[in-house]
């Protein structure tokens, strides 16, 4: 992983040409190159990087002259709160609408939800985002269009989700980010629930005299949650990693914005640190999903 990233970032271009001022002499350019260690052969640069990486040092940003990892970390909170808000929004909305669509298969309610979910899947984020900014942020002026709101610290966590202003700021970007995900969850929930509703165990549950609320809320929902967990987990990784577009539209000071800016100036250590972080995140998420799976599905795990 680190090798692929390292080599491909190397292949993008020479950062020195961007870093130095246009009036710089050849000597100055060489000095910069030596100072950054870019005069060394690629394999040696990689080995140096690995050696330092093992000690928790992913290098310093060429631009900010700060350790790349702590730079990425400083933006991580903002991205995480955006991704978590989007995840919460899309699971709650997606499961609720998906269940309704499953219960109303064939009538206009079910059809409307399904049509909306197709739109949600196919509309590109950048377009929807811009539209939302124009509509709610500018024309109606209900919600702040860009940036992150006030932050507050609660239980040692600093987040804008703890203030009114912060929440107002997070609504639009979180909705934009959640859109595709919500549509996906609606469709998954619906197909799972339709299948469960036709199963013998739901029929048996009805024959037991259970209320429809209990049947849908316990019997159907629990069967649906199992396949959904895998997808939602993977999608969460996607939300964090690919919030790039959303963060750019809303000028959200998160990792996605940082990586776009860093790529523009070929700030290699930051790019590498970011990608390593994302890779690690996916590993962690997969682990969490597997653990959740065990908690949800009794057929997984050691038999007693």
């Amino acid at each position: 992983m680190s090798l692929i990233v390292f080599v491909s970032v190397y292949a993008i271009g020479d950062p020195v040409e961007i870093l130095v001022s246009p009036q710089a002499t050849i000597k100055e350019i060489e000095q910069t190159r030596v100072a950054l260690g870019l005069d060394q052969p690629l394999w040696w640069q990689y080995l140096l990087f690995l050696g330092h990486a093992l000690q928790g040092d992913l290098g310093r940003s060429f631009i900010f002259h700060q350790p790349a990892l702590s730079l990425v970390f400083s933006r991580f909170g903002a991205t995480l709160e955006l991704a978590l808000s989007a995840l919460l929004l899309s699971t709650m909305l997606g499961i609720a609408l998906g269940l309704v669509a499953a219960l109303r298969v064939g009538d206009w309610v079910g059809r409307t939800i399904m049509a909306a979910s197709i739109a949600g899947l196919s509309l590109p984020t950048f377009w929807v985002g811009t539209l939302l900014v124009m509509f709610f942020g500018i024309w109606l002026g209900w919600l702040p269009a860009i940036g992150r709101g006030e932050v507050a610290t609660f239980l040692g966590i600093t987040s804008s989700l703890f203030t009114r202003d912060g929440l107002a700021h997070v609504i639009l970007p979180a909705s934009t980010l959640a859109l595709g995900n919500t549509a996906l969850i609606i469709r998954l929930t619906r197909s799972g629930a339709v299948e469960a509703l036709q199963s013998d165990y739901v029929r048996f549950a009805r024959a037991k005299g259970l209320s429809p609320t209990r049947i849908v809320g316990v019997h159907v929902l629990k069967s649906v949650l199992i396949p959904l967990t895998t997808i939602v987990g993977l999608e969460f990784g996607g939300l964090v990693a690919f919030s790039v577009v959303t963060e750019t539209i809303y000028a959200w000071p998160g990792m996605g914005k940082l990586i776009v800016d860093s790529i523009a100036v070929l700030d290699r250590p930051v790019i590498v640190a970011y990608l390593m972080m994302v890779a690690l995140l996916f590993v962690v998420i997969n682990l969490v999903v597997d653990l959740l799976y065990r908690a949800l599905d009794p057929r997984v795990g050691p038999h007693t």
Partner: protein
Amino acid sequence: MSDDVPTLELRDLHTDFDTRAGVLRAVDGVTLSVGRGEVLGLVGESGSGKSVTGFSIIGLIDPPGRVSSGSIKFQGRELVGLPEPELRRLRGRHIAMIFQDPMMTLNPVLRIDTQMTETIQAHERVSTAEARRRSRDALGQVGIPSPEERLSAYPHQFSGGMRQRVAIAIALLHNPALIIADEPTTALDVTIQAQILAVVQKLASERGTSLLWITHDLSVVAGLADRIAVMYAGRIVESGSVDAVLDHPMHHYTRGLIGSVPSRNQRGHKLVQIPGMTPSPLNRPAGCAFRTRCPAADSACEVEPELIVPVPGRELRCFHPAPDALVAA
């Protein structure tokens, strides 16, 4: 409640399914009754409408199906047209149902205790601890060893036979007046079948529970039922006490069914079968639905035969009952 009110009484029940190809009449005028503590075996081949009859009684016919006419009386109370919440209060409490495939009827992701206590708490306000205690006792009664531990298990940790015992325990939780059993032993192997039959027979007779036992297996009915009703193409063609019907079948369909059971005497001979297939409910022959397969059919059978009482205690829907059976009866 007086003894002369039957637990279940169906009168001219019709259940239809609206399909693109037309109205599919799955149950076509079924009339039957099950007395208190009585076991009625409802026998017929696949597609005869016997399961749909069972689901009609408990009100679990989903659109596009509907009970289109007729009456279902449970302990003298009319169930057709009863609003859903009323029906729900009956289901599981006064009328219980056991299904065919025990591998499918229990929810795989919920523990046994959840699936049992919810049945109790759907009908009675009792504490979870009390509901759990009663569930444990019910598991013990159907012969599940160490019921306390098994309560916390999941369905996949049980064998098919054990799962059907759990389903029976759930059906018995509220001491229902009627249990509708839809081929509950069909998916089990023979030794397990015998065990399940013994459990149900014992518990039902101890409690005076009426049973409507739906099956295609005549040997099951022979050992279990008091009376038998034979169903063909949505209608009851013959009914009477088990011994009378099995020993002296009058309807040629019943004869065919009994003749199709392989036995040792037939070794070396070709197995007997009823020629042809069950007609699709969309194009049943006019008149007697069996006439296209019947050896005794003639032009008289093109008119629908009425239900007659050839001898006391027997009912029959046929113009040409088997003569030897009439003599014997």
